[in-house]
């Protein structure tokens, strides 16, 4: 395979793997929280960061990560305030991000072609320095997404319940926003700022066609992120198109293929599991398993009034005398 002989392709492929893992990992939490479009907005905002880099001569990877994080914190703040106008405020932030990006790029004297490499990715532009930054950031994002999975799951599943559990919900909420912002920067060189959101959302959507647990959705989404990322970069080597486009089209093809399989799977599962209720809690007659002793007021098990008889609290179950055995009550 000749493309592996090129240094730029090696770097592009490494960046693709990191992006393909990090984007769906964060994306799973965004989708769970029903914030699928957050990545899109952050991509717009990060563009202003790139432009600032072009204007000042600082590395765009740093300026974009800084601006994207600021944008993420602003979005999270507006969301937490929960005002009715939050929707419009966010929209304006997104427009401002892309307009500011184009404006400042123009001031910096850069061309639309330069901007395009950030918007849709470019396999030839991943420098050695970029790769280091991308690798460290992606590793941190993936480590947090996996290591804090129980906490992030709880916050994204039910924010109010998480707060009553004593979790620092605002902190985790900001963390997710910042992780998304960092991922946007990680993905900037491969899939590009305008299409990064697709790599956060589409693999998750594909995975959940086939899964029923969060854990497998999370893992499968990461696999489904890496495959089109690598494929897209290789495709862009042979056919001169922006890698962002081929990566996203690739992952959408995955979704289209998974969809019929998913609906078949769901129908089969639905048929299999209609009546699996535990009769103990639905009132049917359930004798307890063999019982070592006769419950009486001296047996040491707490007693509970139940209508016109007494139940005994035994190992988390309530036992009621019935003929010569005990019923679970």
């Amino acid at each position, binding site marked *: 395979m000749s493309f592996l002989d090129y240094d730029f392709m090696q770097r592009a492929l490494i960046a693709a793997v990191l992006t393909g893992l990090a984007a769906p990992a964060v994306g*799973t939490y965004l*989708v*769970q*929280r029903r914030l*699928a479009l957050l990545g899109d907005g952050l991509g717009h905002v990060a563009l202003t960061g790139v432009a600032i880099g072009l204007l000042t001569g600082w590395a765009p990877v740093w300026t974009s990560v800084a601006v994207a994080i600021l944008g993420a914190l602003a979005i999270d703040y507006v969301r937490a305030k929960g005002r009715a106008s939050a929707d419009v405020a966010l929209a304006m932030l997104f427009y401002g991000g892309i307009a500011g990006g184009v404006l400042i790029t123009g001031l910096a004297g850069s061309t639309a072609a330069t901007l395009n490499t950030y918007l849709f990715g470019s396999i030839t532009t991943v420098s050695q320095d970029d790769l280091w930054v991308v690798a460290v950031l992606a590793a941190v994002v993936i480590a947090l997404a996996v290591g*804090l999975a*129980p*906490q992030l*799951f*709880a916050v*994204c*599943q*039910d924010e*109010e*319940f*998480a*707060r*009553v*559990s*004593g*979790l620092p919900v605002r902190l985790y909420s900001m963390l997710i926003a910042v992780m998304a912002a960092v991922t946007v920067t990680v993905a900037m060189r491969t899939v590009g700022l305008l299409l990064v959101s697709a790599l956060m959302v589409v693999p998750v959507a594909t995975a*959940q066609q086939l899964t*029923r*647990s*969060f*854990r497998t*959705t*999370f893992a499968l989404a990461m696999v489904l992120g890496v495959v089109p990322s690598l494929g897209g970069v290789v495709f862009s080597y042979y056919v001169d198109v922006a890698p962002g486009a081929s990566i996203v089209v690739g992952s959408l093809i995955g979704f289209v293929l998974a969809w019929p399989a998913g609906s078949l799977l*769901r129908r089969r*599962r*639905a048929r299999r*599991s209609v009546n*699996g*209720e*535990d*009769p*103990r*809690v*639905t*009132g049917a*007659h359930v004798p307890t398993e063999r019982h070592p002793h006769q419950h*009486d*007021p001296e047996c040491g098990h*707490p*007693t*509970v*009034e*139940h*209508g*016109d*008889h*007494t139940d005994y*609290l035994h190992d*988390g*179950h*309530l036992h*009621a*005398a*019935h003929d010569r055995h005990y019923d679970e*009550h």
Partner: protein
Amino acid sequence: MRSAVVDVRGLRVDLDDRPVLHGVDLQVVEGEVVTLLGANGSGKSTLVRTVVGLVPSVAGEVRLFGTPLRSFHDWWRVGYVPQRTTAAGGVPATVREVVAAGRLARRKLFRPARKADRAAVDHAIELVGLSDQANRSVANLSGGQQQRVLIARAAASEPDLMVLDEPNAGVDKRSQEAFARALRTFVASGRTVLLVLHEMGPLAPLVDRGVVLDGGHVVHDGPLPTPSMTLTGPPDHHDDHREDYGAGLFG
């Protein structure tokens, strides 16, 4: 004397600058089952949401287990069941995964779940009768079963106080009964329950005291008339007629 688990004094709460609760007092002592009743908009939901710290108060004080809410940190002692129509999020999750989220108050960061954690989650699922569904996606369960998942999640931290916000709203009879049984088992071990109800249903015999709210004021605080029903409907052949040995023990 049994100690106060929930102690609310002179509570005033505004939502969007509109007063919702005007100087409400509410005490719930250890082992008690207290239900809040009232019409829509009477402030009963706001009251429990303030008690668990989700809504800020304008005036007055809330204490949980004797500690002012501001400095209360033992959140594992509180099992909260929010008012929800679904337990599902944007991504599939199994019953076990959702219930395990309720155990986080007892877990440390970056540590895997211990044996005791897994056992508590299993037990909570069993409590609401969903053991056979533990690995199913919550989105595929009925509304009543999803409500039971939320109750199991609250029970997973093995709390001393359960706070439930309309757990029976739109729930089928079978799940209501399952819920009543789960709650009975919970109360039987001497723990405390504060719940908001629209109508008493099969829970009536379980409730020690009713607090009725109207327009943000407490208008009744005391025992409620109990219909002659057992917990799960009219007496049937399961309800063995024996002497009431433990009368008054949990009353």
